[in-house]
């Protein structure tokens, strides 16, 4: 853990821990909702990757933008979303962030700068770069972070928009969460050469960071966001991380692409929440009891939100053809 301890930092550390715990609690509940057939559709768990979303989003303001992915609950929570509206969206309820029209794979929370999850792998790369183009043209000073997985590096559109972002010095950070697997396939089998070298080929400063170390991620993000605001973007960051679940809930028998030993090893030795908690205790920033009570509080919040969402009404059927087109000009 590369970190400094100060009063101001203490609050930031606790907030990072809490946000990671909130993501984990959200995902555990979402997983149960799905398995118990209370949740329609399909969903992809972010568990294990919490340090990436939290480390980066804690370096952003709510005016800064992010684009997210099909594995997007973590980004959404990290960018400031509320449990209730998120669970309502997962269950297709009227109070969801998208009034039940988007679901797990399309949650958008524009009030917090989340331009939306995207169910097309690589589908948000253009959107994120366009958001950075607006920021540059209008001089807003906002930074956009484009989250995507290692699988999306195989999409051609990334190279098109990186080229333009580099040509026009756009304030964007391409954040590749390399969790080692492109759906059901090892990343090594789908990616030739080095990912950072690909971005470097466009003259983009590129970094690799331990995606399980929230402080390392946050330190790098703080630096790059500041540089973006000074007009030194774009940047590329490869975050080495791990997803605890299968590609989607229900991807249970995955021995053919990864071993249970490997999964157990990551969970035991490299869990971002456990390790950060140990560090906080070691630094005497927090006591073990305080952490437990924070965990319990977060879990109770999540369960209350689930209960609320289960009881919440579905949208009125009259909403089905609402919002196809925006009104007015």
């Amino acid at each position, binding site marked *: 853990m590369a970190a400094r301890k100060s009063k101001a930092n203490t609050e930031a550390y606790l907030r990072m821990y809490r946000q990671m715990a909130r993501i984990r609690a959200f995902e555990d509940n979402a997983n149960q909702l799905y398995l118990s057939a209370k949740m329609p559709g399909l969903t992809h768990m972010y568990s294990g990757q919490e340090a990436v979303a939290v480390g980066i989003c804690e370096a952003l303001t709510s005016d800064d933008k992010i684009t997210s992915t099909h594995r997007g609950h973590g980004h959404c929570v990290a960018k400031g979303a509320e449990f209730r509206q998120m669970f309502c969206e997962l269950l297709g309820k009227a109070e969801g962030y998208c009034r039940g029209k988007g679901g797990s794979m399309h949650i958008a929370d524009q009030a917090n700068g989340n331009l939306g999850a995207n169910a*097309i792998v690589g589908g948000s790369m*253009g*959107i994120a770069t366009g958001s950075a183009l*607006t920021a540059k043209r209008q001089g807003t000073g906002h930074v956009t972070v484009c989250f995507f997985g290692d699988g999306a590096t195989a999409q051609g559109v990334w190279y098109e928009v990186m080229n333009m972002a580099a040509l026009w010095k756009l304030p964007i950070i391409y954040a590749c969460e390399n969790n080692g697997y492109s759906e059901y396939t090892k990343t090594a089998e789908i990616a030739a050469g080095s990912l950072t070298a690909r971005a470097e080929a466009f003259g983009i400063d590129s970094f690799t960071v331990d995606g399980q170390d929230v402080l390392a991620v946050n330190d790098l993000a703080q630096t790059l966001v500041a540089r973006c605001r000074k007009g030194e973007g774009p940047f590329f960051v490869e975050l080495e991380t791990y997803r605890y679940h299968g590609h989607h809930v229900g991807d249970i028998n995955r021995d053919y692409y990864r071993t249970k030993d490997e999964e157990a090893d990551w969970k035991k030795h490299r869990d971002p929440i456990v390790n950060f908690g140990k560090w906080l205790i070691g630094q005497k920033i927090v006591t073990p009891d305080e952490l437990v009570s924070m965990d319990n509080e977060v879990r109770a919040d999540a369960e209350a939100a689930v209960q609320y969402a289960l009881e919440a009404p579905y949208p009125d059927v009259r909403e089905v053809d609402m919002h*196809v087109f*925006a009104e*007015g000009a």
Partner: protein
Amino acid sequence: MREITLSRAVNEAIAEEMRRDPAIFLIGEDVAEAGTPFKVLSGLVEEFGTERIIDTPISEPGFMGMAVGAAMTGSRPIVDLMFGDFIFLVMDQLCNQAAKTHYMSGGKLKVPLVLRTNLGATRRSAAQHSQSLHALVAHIPGLKVALPSSAYEAKGLLKTAIRDDNPVVIFEDKLMYNDKAPVPEEEYLLPFGKAEILRQGKDVTLVGTSSMVQVCRKAADLLAADGISAEVIDPRTIVPLDEDTIVGSAKKTSRAIVVDEGHQNFGVTAEIAARIADKAFYYLDNPVQRMGAMDVPVPFSPALEDLTVPTPEQVAERARRLCRGEI
């Protein structure tokens, strides 16, 4: 009234709107100094600079996707897609992203962008530079589709498109860029979803879109010489579609022919004909006729290419046969 080319009308529309609203920028391949291969945009970069008339690499999915993101964050981009055929390259950005964002976000996000492109065969450009693909995007909920048929419509519809808060795809007929038509000096906008009845008639309704509007008007002239009175309707936009005007005319004349330069199979002619059949069924004295482009890739040879697009003579002959009760 002064007459200007369709190309000039488009240029004026963009310039007027960009002067009005600094959030508007134009992005595409060779749009700045080159002013596009058709020289439609010449002069704009001199007035607005390269910050607002943005040349891109040849990366259609990339700049289309960027336009979507820019539109979601407070910009109002106009995307220039050099040929309508390249729309296949931007389908994910246009149909999966732009078209669905407002709906999927429960109305929270808006995508006010215009995709300007073109259609039309008989430029001897063969199968990848001659297609009329507007039916493809008209099929996708969330996209509006405008089909101007003259300089007057090109300007008025484009200005409306730029002010719309939704993604709008506007197809210009690339064979008409140099055609002149009366266009007022003063500002005007043309509403979407309002068809124009270009000629009144009582025996048969000819619904023509874009390039086929002129074909229908010429066919109506030929028919008049035979004592057949044809009503000619230009829908101007196919999404939204002015169903009332089209159906009302078909009810009046009891006969309708729909003419469009897109391929006939599963195309715009099919959709409009079906609506007429649905809503005017008990007023029809003959089956509704569809005349689209032949269902073949557009051939290069002039001897072949000219066979693929409906002509005024063909439309008139179909109308005569309808009125004689041969169909």
